[in-house]
């Protein structure tokens, strides 16, 4: 752990406050670290991934002796030093070629990790296309039922969502909708259904980036969307994984009391439509409009108070007796009706 000194001036206090935990958090920052075995290919890929993450990113120029799955202490140090909670480490070995390890940190401690082996890739520069503006919020697309079923793919979905979603915002400028990041996992081969989990070949994660274009369509006020691939285009194979420690997970998914909203009776259905139940109050049946006829007019009402009172008394008596009877014997209740 780094030594935290008490701030001596306003500037250093502001800097410390910026790093302090907040109720509504800032967008997560990413750190790109080349491992000691990192090569040119991985370096170029990290440059491209950083381009998607800018300005919330830091990239180390020098190689570092890091093996994330063996010792995470230096990752934790880097995380605290740079105030980054996402770390991408590039390593290459004969056994595990061209690996990008995506680590997430919680409170400067390792939260979870997944190793994604780069099978094939095409860089932004090879597309020769105009790209998007820096710092725009991307549209995210997750294709594949695996992202809802398989725990490893769930992790990957959560990771990429976390990586690219940026800061939570309540307003969106239409002109900021510029690029799309799509992540696709094919359904596993049906022939493999009988195999054990270990023998199953894991589907590739296909990472694609497109520029969004809109054209006029046959329906008014609904544009036809066209895409233009700008890269990077990466195919990942899933490697090793480290899942979060349950205690830490519980802490990390805690919702601050201040943000928790008591929105009653409002829910979202599977179409993404908001449904609400409202209380309409008690209906006054006296005001109910029934069949209209002359004889039912109010002026023809027979007001006989004595009779009405008598009727009331009888009714009350019956109810009282009925209650008593019910207490003694449930069956005899029917006799009074």
């Amino acid at each position, binding site marked *: 752990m780094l030594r935290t000194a008490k701030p001596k001036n306003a500037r250093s206090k502001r800097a410390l406050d910026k790093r*302090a*935990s*907040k*109720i509504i*958090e*800032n967008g*997560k920052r990413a750190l790109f670290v080349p491992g000691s075995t990192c090569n040119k290919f991985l370096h170029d890929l990290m440059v491209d991934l950083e381009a998607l993450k800018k300005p919330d990113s830091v990239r180390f120029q020098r190689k570092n002796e890091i093996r994330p799955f063996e010792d995470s202490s230096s990752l934790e140090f880097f995380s605290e030093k740079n105030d980054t*909670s996402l770390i991408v480490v590039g390593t290459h070995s004969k056994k595990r070629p061209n690996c990008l390890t995506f680590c*997430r940190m*919680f*409170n400067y401690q390792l*939260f979870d990790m997944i190793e994604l082996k780069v099978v094939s890739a095409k860089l932004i520069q090879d597309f020769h296309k105009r790209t998007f503006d820096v710092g725009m*919020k*991307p*549209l*995210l*697309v*997750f*294709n*594949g*039922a695996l*992202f*809802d079923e398989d725990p490893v793919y769930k992790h990957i979905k*959560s990771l990429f*969502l*976390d990586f690219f*979603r940026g800061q*939570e*915002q309540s*307003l*969106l*400028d*239409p002109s900021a*909708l510029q690029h*799309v990041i*799509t992540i*696709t*996992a*094919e*359904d596993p081969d049906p022939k493999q259904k009988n195999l054990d989990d270990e023998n199953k070949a894991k589907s590739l994660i296909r990472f*694609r980036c*497109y520029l969004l274009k*809109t*054209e006029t*369509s*046959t*329906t008014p006020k609904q*544009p*036809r*969307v*066209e*895409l233009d691939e700008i890269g990077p285009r990466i195919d990942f194979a899933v490697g090793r994984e480290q899942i979060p420690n349950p205690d830490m997970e519980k*802490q*990390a*998914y*805690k919702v601050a009391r201040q943000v928790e909203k008591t929105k009653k009776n409002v829910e*979202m259905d*599977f179409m*993404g439509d*908001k449904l609400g139940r409202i209380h309409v109050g008690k209906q006054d049946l006296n005001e109910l409009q029934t069949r209209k006829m002359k004889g039912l007019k109010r002026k023809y009402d027979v007001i006989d108070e004595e009779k009405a009172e008598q009727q009331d008394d009888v009714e009350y008596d019956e109810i009282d007796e009925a209650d008593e009877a019910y207490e003694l014997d449930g069956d005899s209740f029917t006799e009074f009706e």
Partner: protein
Amino acid sequence: MKTPIVEKAIPTVFDLGNLAIADSNPIVLNADSIETDLYALNRDNVQLLVNQILQLPLKRTVDSINSSNSQNSTMTLFSLPEPLWQTPREKPVPKDKAKTRWELFAAKKGIQKRAKDGKLVFDEETKKWIPKWGYNGANKKADKQWLVEYDDKNPNTDETIDPRTLPRAQRKQLVKKSLHQQKKNAKANA
């Protein structure tokens, strides 16, 4: 012109707070045409997402957001809902500030916090508004008087002390006490 309407066998899930969509329909990618298949799949899903975003309620704002020129312009923005998919926090939820000894006591006794009624006070002699404390503050009046009233209740026993310095000493004492209490609270809540 092409149609913007896309139909899916299994309805897709939208998370408009994160501008995301999840499609769990079966995926078929032919080995010869992976890229074109992927393009078609992604285009359809982005179309669905954009159609949803365009249905979001609009909000007009007058102030300029992220614009370099100082001119104000009206902007029409989409108001996004709360994110649906949760992601882990970066840092733990901040702890509430610890209560001081006085705050605890006040809560026990039901003493309500009162708002301060301003820093200025009207001076009847000069008919001016002067600060209650600080430079030329109202609490420093006794420091400069040519004649000091004799206090029956707290007689100044030590004749060598200038009675004009007494209020200042008292104020210094209060500051000292307050600092001591602050330290005590910090120690208790550490």
